[in-house]
């Protein structure tokens, strides 16, 4: 029983991270139909900035805030410089551009900070079952996700973001600055992604540290329906707990395999995700 509780609690905090990174993918996907494969690299760069700032100032929280701000700005820059020029080139071009950006940014990170692992601090004490750090991860994600959902649902900006996601052409006609909304969406997504990165990176940072987490986050997003923020959060938590059971009961080496099996099974059986609505594709 203790094992079960431990595994569940352990899964909850990693699931929260998958949920946050998954949410950052969903925010962009539902506005643009682009899966942002560069998301782990954007989060990586912001985590490295946190590493440098923390090292320079001695303050974890200064690094934390700097990383979120820089991550958000990075998302804005990527949208303006890379995604926007490709807006008439089709979604596939944008997706391939994000893949290229992933490789580029990981290489650049290695050049600046070296490919060797550096120690990366937890926010709080990380020892014991459901440590303060685990609790912080869950709370931080709950606060961020709630903020995003409230923003979407209850503010004029959120309404414009949703209108843009549903139908950009009509959104333009009713006076929404669609380009600006896409920029805001990318910034918002990258900010949430940076948070996920900061929570997922410890104890060591190196250029490919977030790759595995990204696979789980993508699985969580597919599980949730890719255009369903709430579904993705639930999907992330379910996946985190499920993988924790796999790790604890069957062996940690089976975790990536289990995640891929879930991904394939969902795509084969319910491509719109467990919580997704079967909707007409925008063409």
């Amino acid at each position, binding site marked *: 029983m203790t094992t079960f509780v431990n595994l569940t609690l352990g899964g909850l905090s990693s699931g929260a991270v998958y949920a946050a990174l998954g949410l950052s993918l969903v925010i962009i996907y539902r506005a643009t139909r682009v899966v942002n494969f560069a998301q782990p690299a954007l989060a990586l760069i912001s985590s490295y900035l946190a590493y440098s700032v923390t090292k320079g100032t001695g303050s974890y929280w200064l690094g934390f805030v700097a990383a979120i701000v820089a991550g958000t700005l990075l998302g804005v820059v990527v949208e303006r410089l890379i995604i926007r020029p490709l807006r008439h080139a089709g979604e596939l071009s944008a997706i391939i551009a994000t893949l290229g950006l992933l490789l580029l940014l990981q290489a650049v990170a290695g050049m600046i900070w070296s490919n060797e692992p550096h120690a990366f601090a937890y926010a709080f004490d990380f020892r014991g079952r459901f440590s303060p750090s685990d609790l912080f991860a869950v709370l931080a994600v709950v606060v961020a996700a709630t903020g995003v959902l409230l*923003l979407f649902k*209850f*503010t*004029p*900006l*959120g*309404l*414009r973001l*949703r*209108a843009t*996601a*549903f*139908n950009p*052409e*009509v*959104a*333009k*006609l*009713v*006076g*929404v*600055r*669609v380009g*600006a909304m896409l920029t*805001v969406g990318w910034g*918002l997504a990258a900010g949430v992604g940076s948070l996920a990165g900061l929570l997922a990176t410890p104890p060591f940072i190196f250029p490919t540290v977030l790759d595995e987490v990204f696979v789980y986050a993508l699985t969580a997003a597919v599980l949730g329906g890719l255009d369903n923020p709430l579904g993705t959060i639930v999907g992330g938590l379910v996946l985190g707990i499920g993988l924790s059971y796999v790790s604890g009961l069957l062996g940690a080496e089976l975790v990536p395999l289990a995640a891929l099996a879930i991904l394939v099974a969902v795509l084969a059986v319910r491509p719109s995700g467990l919580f997704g609505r079967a*909707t007409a594709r925008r063409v």
Partner: protein
Amino acid sequence: MTITSHEKLLEVDGVTVRFGGLVALHDVGLSIRPGTVVGVIGPNGAGKTTLFNVVCGFLRPDEGELRWKGRPLRKHRPDQLAGLGIARTLQGLGLFGGLTVLENVMTGAGRLARTGALASLLGTGRAARDERELRARSEDVLAELDIAHVADLLPGALPYGVRKRVALARALVAEPELLLLDEPASGLSTAEMDELATRITSLSEKTAVVLVEHHMDLVMRVCDEVVVLDFGEVIATGPPDVVRVDPAVADAYLGTAPEEQPSA
């Protein structure tokens, strides 16, 4: 022309649009004064929708100019239209399927919300006040159009006639000075069309209306002025009674029976 131009809301002056070799509009001119209802009619393919798209900024004219309150509209974008005070409805309704009726209407009131993106992200009091005002105003418009009871439903669940009213509510909520209606009567029952006619007439107290429409009955009933397009050219302009008996119009479009279109 220049002396009186400030009395006109919208002027379309010598507009020509070509799609490759096809001339969709040729030297089209019209002007809209405040408080009037202007109908644009013509057979299919006459250029009505093209003209609409030029006014909305989706298409740039190859020649000619648009003026809004006497000022030239150059390179205006569709998303700036609402800010100027021009609203339009769409042939295909164009409601947001994933937003409730009320939210759909609220998107139309965007120009009245002045909170920037950053303030909204930070959740300032101003953003919350804007939200409440948008919501209240949108609820009022829904009530005016007698569809307040469907505010929280998704548009997909509603009958076509009701959805058209939602689309109209979304256009009206921004209190436009000019309302462009693209085939508002298509798909409506006779009773609904009567209601629409009454509504358009009462709307003209607050806003000028441009009506692109196939239904001759409606156009003749509600319009102060009718512009007839054929093959991209204006072949007649004037009050309905005058246009109705214009031989060129009869020839191009009306024929002897108004509802029939001779082989166009």
